[in-house]
């Protein structure tokens, strides 16, 4: 029987000619990732293994991004533990304030993952690197500890859902709108234990920021991983970022899929996921008048340069609505610098937004934009669970950077098509 992209990568990493869905395997890892929240737990577990060395000091990365720059003393202690561990074990890819970015924007930018790799990360959004044609999945801290020790992880080979993309996105519509539509269609457990494989003629029109965003949120449908077929866009990106030589795995023609979805990208509209689940996706004909208190534009989902460009295009020459706080967070130092050179930061600041150093901060209610009781935010992040961004009685609406920017200037949840209606070519 044929194999999916994911199954082929897992077979190649477990020394087998073929694997089938449901099989349990032990796979070799190309990269083991952790952040300042999950790594401290992994470091404590690692100590119980009585191993002096990690399996490969170049194949482990720790990135201080969640509660960094340190939000309090305990957060500072956690970063210090990671710093000391990486120093003692001579781990090459330790990234601290000044160099770090939000991990899932930073790792591809740094060229740490290439097509065909098998990657685990102690962060659920590790599935982002599927956009590069890698098998990449989120795990816990114990898996990270064992991965650091032996360079392997156990997996149940997943079955798959295929998403066949056709057409081309309209202006002010992005990968975020596509993935919110998909999660709306299949539900937050619609891809539970499965991989989501993206393919089709429509792929060519999606830039890498769109793809990274879509793979990033595969976990919000419960998926083990999301993976894109490798094409010229992927290969150009990998080359530009000095990634290792790509290994391309294409699904067999007779690969088995539990479900096949077809999506015409030209039919996707600006979409918003209502509290408190990412599956509550609505388009503007069903969205009433919803005033907002805060806007967040950033995160591992939507803090890339194209995201900031989309937001700036709408905010240019306009003003943030009264009584709305807008927080823009370029996801990496490099994106920050590029946005500065392009004049985007000036646009944001003149519009009335603040621009923060790279951090996960507000996405998980950590710092830099925590919500009070009863407050409402529209955010380009990935989760709108109860209490995710602060008080359990606050509300988060998930949307694209364009929709968040349109909402920022109107003070209520607004379609970018509405704000740009005189300039839009639909």
């Amino acid at each position, binding site marked *: 029987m044929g194999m999916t992209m994911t199954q082929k990568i897992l077979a190649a990493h477990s020394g087998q000619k073929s694997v089938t869905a449901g099989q349990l395997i032990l796979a070799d890892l190309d990269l083991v990732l952790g952040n300042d929240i999950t790594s401290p737990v992994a470091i404590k577990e690692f100590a119980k293994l009585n191993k002096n060395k990690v399996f490969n000091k170049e194949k482990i990365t720790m990135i201080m991004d969640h509660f960094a720059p340190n939000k309090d003393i305990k957060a500072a202690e956690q970063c210090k533990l990671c710093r000391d561990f990486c120093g003692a074990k001579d781990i090459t890819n330790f990234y601290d304030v000044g160099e770090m970015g939000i991990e899932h924007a930073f790792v591809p930018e740094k060229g740490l993952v290439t097509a065909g790799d098998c990657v685990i990360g102690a962060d659920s959004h590790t599935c982002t690197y599927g956009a590069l044609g890698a098998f990449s999945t989120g795990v816990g801290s114990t898996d990270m500890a064992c991965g650091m020790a032996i360079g392997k992880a156990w997996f149940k080979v997943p079955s798959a859902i295929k998403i066949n993309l056709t057409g081309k996105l309209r202006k002010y519509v992005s990968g975020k709108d596509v993935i919110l539509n998909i999660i709306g269609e299949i539900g937050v457990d619609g891809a539970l234990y499965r991989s989501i494989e993206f393919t089709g003629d429509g792929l060519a029109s999606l830039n890498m920021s769109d793809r990274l965003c879509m793979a990033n949120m595969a976990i919000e449908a419960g998926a083990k991983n999301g993976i894109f077929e490798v094409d010229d866009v992927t290969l150009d990106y990998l080359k530009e970022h000095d990634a290792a030589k790509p290994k391309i795995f294409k699904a067999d023609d007779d690969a088995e899929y539990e479900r096949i979805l077809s999506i015409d990208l030209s039919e996707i509209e600006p979409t918003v996921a209502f509290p408190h689940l990412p599956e509550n996706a609505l388009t503007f004909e069903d969205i009433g008048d919803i005033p907002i208190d805060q806007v967040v534009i950033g995160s591992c989902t939507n803090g890339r340069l194209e995201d900031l460009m989309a937001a700036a295009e709408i905010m240019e020459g306009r003003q943030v609505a009264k009584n709305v706080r807008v927080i823009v967070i370029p996801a990496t130092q490099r994106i920050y610098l590029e946005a500065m050179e392009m004049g985007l930061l000036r646009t944001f600041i003149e519009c009335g937004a603040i621009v923060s150093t790279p951090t996960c901060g507000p996405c998980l209610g*950590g710092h830099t934009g925590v919500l009070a009781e009863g407050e409402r935010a529209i955010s380009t992040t990935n989760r709108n669970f109860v209490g995710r961004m602060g008080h359990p009685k606050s509300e988060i609406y998930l949307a694209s950077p364009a929709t968040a920017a349109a909402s920022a200037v109107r003070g209520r949840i607004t379609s970018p098509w509405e704000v740009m209606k005189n300039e839009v070519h639909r």
Partner: protein
Amino acid sequence: MKYTGNVLKYGDNVDTDVIIPARYLNTSDHAELAQHCMEDIDPDFTERVHQGDFIAAGLNFGCGSSREHAPIAIKASGISLVIAKSFARIFYRNAINIGLAIVECPEAVDDIKEGDRLEADMDHGIIKNLTTGKTYKTAPFPEFVRKIIMNGGLIQSIANGAIK
């Protein structure tokens, strides 16, 4: 592996942000995490839970973040077994890796009510509701997973050479 206790019952899609809110992730101390377990969905959880109790929940339990702090908080709060209709996959593997017993049993979850007293025999995969007298059969763990649990978790399995 036999457990007896009372049930605390929840619905579908209980996410790791409500199991242990991110504002408490600046620590990995088990007892401290347990003090805030389920705080945003059930503020009285820590007062109501007793050693050995069960959580029964609907679909996709533990969805969201990969934080191992979630199964750690549940285990440290005294919960002996989580019975759900289904589990989110990262939570599922984290629970196995740290040795928190979990089992999928939709029929049991449908019947079980808040406060029911249960007895679970995980060697034979049998859950008995002592309040109603009903018995449910669950699927055993796959052999590879059983090996991890038998060895006391993934760390111990590697430390003693069961997994290389």
